[in-house]
């Protein structure tokens, strides 16, 4: 038995050669990271599939059932809200929205940030200077407030939310990508590629992108929770997604208002949000360690 286990142990000779493969292997060996990924997978899976499977719908108002406590038999496993709607269904649907906003807004910030940073880094010179100066100036502004301002002046629609929040987070991404591009630019293999006539775009695609992918992925994993937090924040204030759509932020807001009579209204969505954010943060940290083992304590 012991021999079998020893035989299965990963030795360095068996590890994959590519940096991505090695990082993945390291990640798999980190118990916290694995746990976080599993939990995230479960939450995401439930949110996506759940609403089609469970008996109650998220917007079915039922005046006989207001504010009932969680109850196995009635099928309202999470209880009901002040309108008699099933909390479990609402939590899952809210999860869909929150996760979707998190993902899409992060991708928006990714696209803007990577483009800005790569152009600045690759072009260099005055253009780089000006572009990064703009980043520095914008960095100091309180973007949360601008997002709220946008919501107030332009109304609450979901696309605007994606764009507004995404536009908030791109700055740090731009800085990271620009830094990576700068250091890559100076490496000989880029010179060599240029010398043999590889077109610029191909260089970017084949050489630069895979090498900046690491820090970008780490940052993306850490941006998603921040974005979700912003969305929850503005939803909590009543400026986010509109009825009957819901998100965890909206649910938490309702929960906070009814906390004395119905603490479960806060507890379930709150725990889901906190758990998701925690797992994303842990995963981001673990990814950072996996991609650069010299880093960390």
């Amino acid at each position, binding site marked *: 038995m012991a021999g079998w286990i020893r035989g299965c142990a990963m030795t360095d000779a068996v590890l994959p050669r590519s940096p991505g493969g090695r990082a993945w292997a390291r990640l798999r060996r980190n118990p916290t990271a694995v746990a976080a990924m599993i939990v995230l997978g479960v939450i995401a899976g439930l949110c996506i599939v759940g609403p089609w499977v469970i008996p109650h719908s998220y917007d079915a108002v039922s005046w006989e059932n207001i504010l009932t406590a969680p109850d196995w038999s009635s099928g309202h496993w999470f209880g009901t809200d002040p309108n008699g709607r099933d909390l479990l269904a609402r939590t899952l649907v809210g999860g869909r929205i929150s996760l979707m906003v998190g993902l899409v807004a992060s991708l928006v910030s990714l696209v803007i940030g990577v483009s800005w940073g790569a152009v600045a880094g690759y072009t260099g010179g005055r253009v780089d200077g000006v572009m990064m100066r703009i980043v*520095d*100036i*914008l960095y*100091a*502004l*309180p973007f*949360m*407030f*601008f997002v*709220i*301002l*946008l*919501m*107030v*002046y*332009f*109304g609450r629609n979901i696309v605007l939310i994606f764009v507004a929040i995404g536009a908030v987070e791109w700055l740090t991404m731009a800085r990271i990508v620009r830094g990576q591009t700068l250091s890559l630019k100076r490496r000989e293999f880029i010179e060599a590629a240029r010398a043999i006539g590889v077109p610029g775009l191909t260089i970017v695609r084949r050489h630069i992108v895979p090498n900046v992918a690491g820090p970008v992925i780490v940052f993306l994993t850490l941006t998603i*929770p921040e974005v979700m*937090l912003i969305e*929850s*924040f503005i939803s*909590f*204030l*009543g*400026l986010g997604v509109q009825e009957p759509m819901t998100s965890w932020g909206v649910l*938490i*807001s309702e*929960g*906070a208002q009814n*906390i*004395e009579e119905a*603490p479960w209204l*806060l*507890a379930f969505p*709150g725990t889901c*949000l*906190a758990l998701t*954010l*925690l797992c994303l*943060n*842990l995963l981001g940290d673990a990814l950072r360690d996996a991609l650069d083992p010299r880093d960390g*304590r």
Partner: protein
Amino acid sequence: MFRYAVARLLGAIPTLFALVTIAFFLVRLAPGGPFDDERQLPPEIEANLQRAYNLDAPLTSQYLRYLGDLARGDLGPSFKYKDYSVAELIATGLPATLRIGLSALVVAVLAGVFCGAVAALRRNGWVDRVVMTLAMTGIAIPNFVVAPALTLLLGVYLRLLPVGGWGDGAFRFLILPVVALALPKIAYVARLTRGSLAEVLGSPYIRTARAKGLRGTTILVRHAARAALLPVVSYLGPTAAALLTGSVVIEQIFGIPGLGRYFVQGALNRDYTLVLGIVLFYGTLIILLNLLADLAYGWLDPRVRYD
């Protein structure tokens, strides 16, 4: 040091300009922009807006006029509270917000540094692991989840503290909001301090200090503290900004008569001038705080000064 300070000051000016300019163009786009019919501006306010922003005059002169108004502290009248100007409303709400915000900052830094230091000094021991795990969770849980939960526990079940409200501003009304606001920051500062102090304690010059026969406390306070706290100081700016932002929701939850509450009310009521004015105010405050934090950093790190 002087040159460093001046450089930082000059750097803040374009940021202020960016703030004001973006805000201006945002406003310029909105009223008279793509609006639905429901949002009817009261006629006298509309006339004021037209006059204040000179919507028929050339753009540059509008912009300059706007700047001029700002410089005089004229943020315009409030839509909703017809008898008050935005500036007056800000002045009313400011004291409560400042009390909460500053208290939270102090609490976050003191508690965070203390916890982080203790964890670093008992590195890899159980204290370290417990503190760091708590910190990790604290960072993840949003303050608007913690606040109602804390309220439930301490206010309702245990009846130790008032559930909300401000009363006369007495201390007991401060405790819950400040703690709820500061908690995620305590966690972050603790993590930051722990990492930084652990690293500093491993550096060669600390070994030299020990080799000189200096006592533990002396080494900690005179040799390690400054280097270890530098990352915390450089994070003070963003911390203050985050606390100001977070206070908006905390004031909402606890019913505290501060800027945040006016802000949210204004947002929900489409009180454009009020919302804009408060955003400008928060923005300027944040830029100022960042500047102060930068200066503090420069004062602490001699290597930066002489660059």
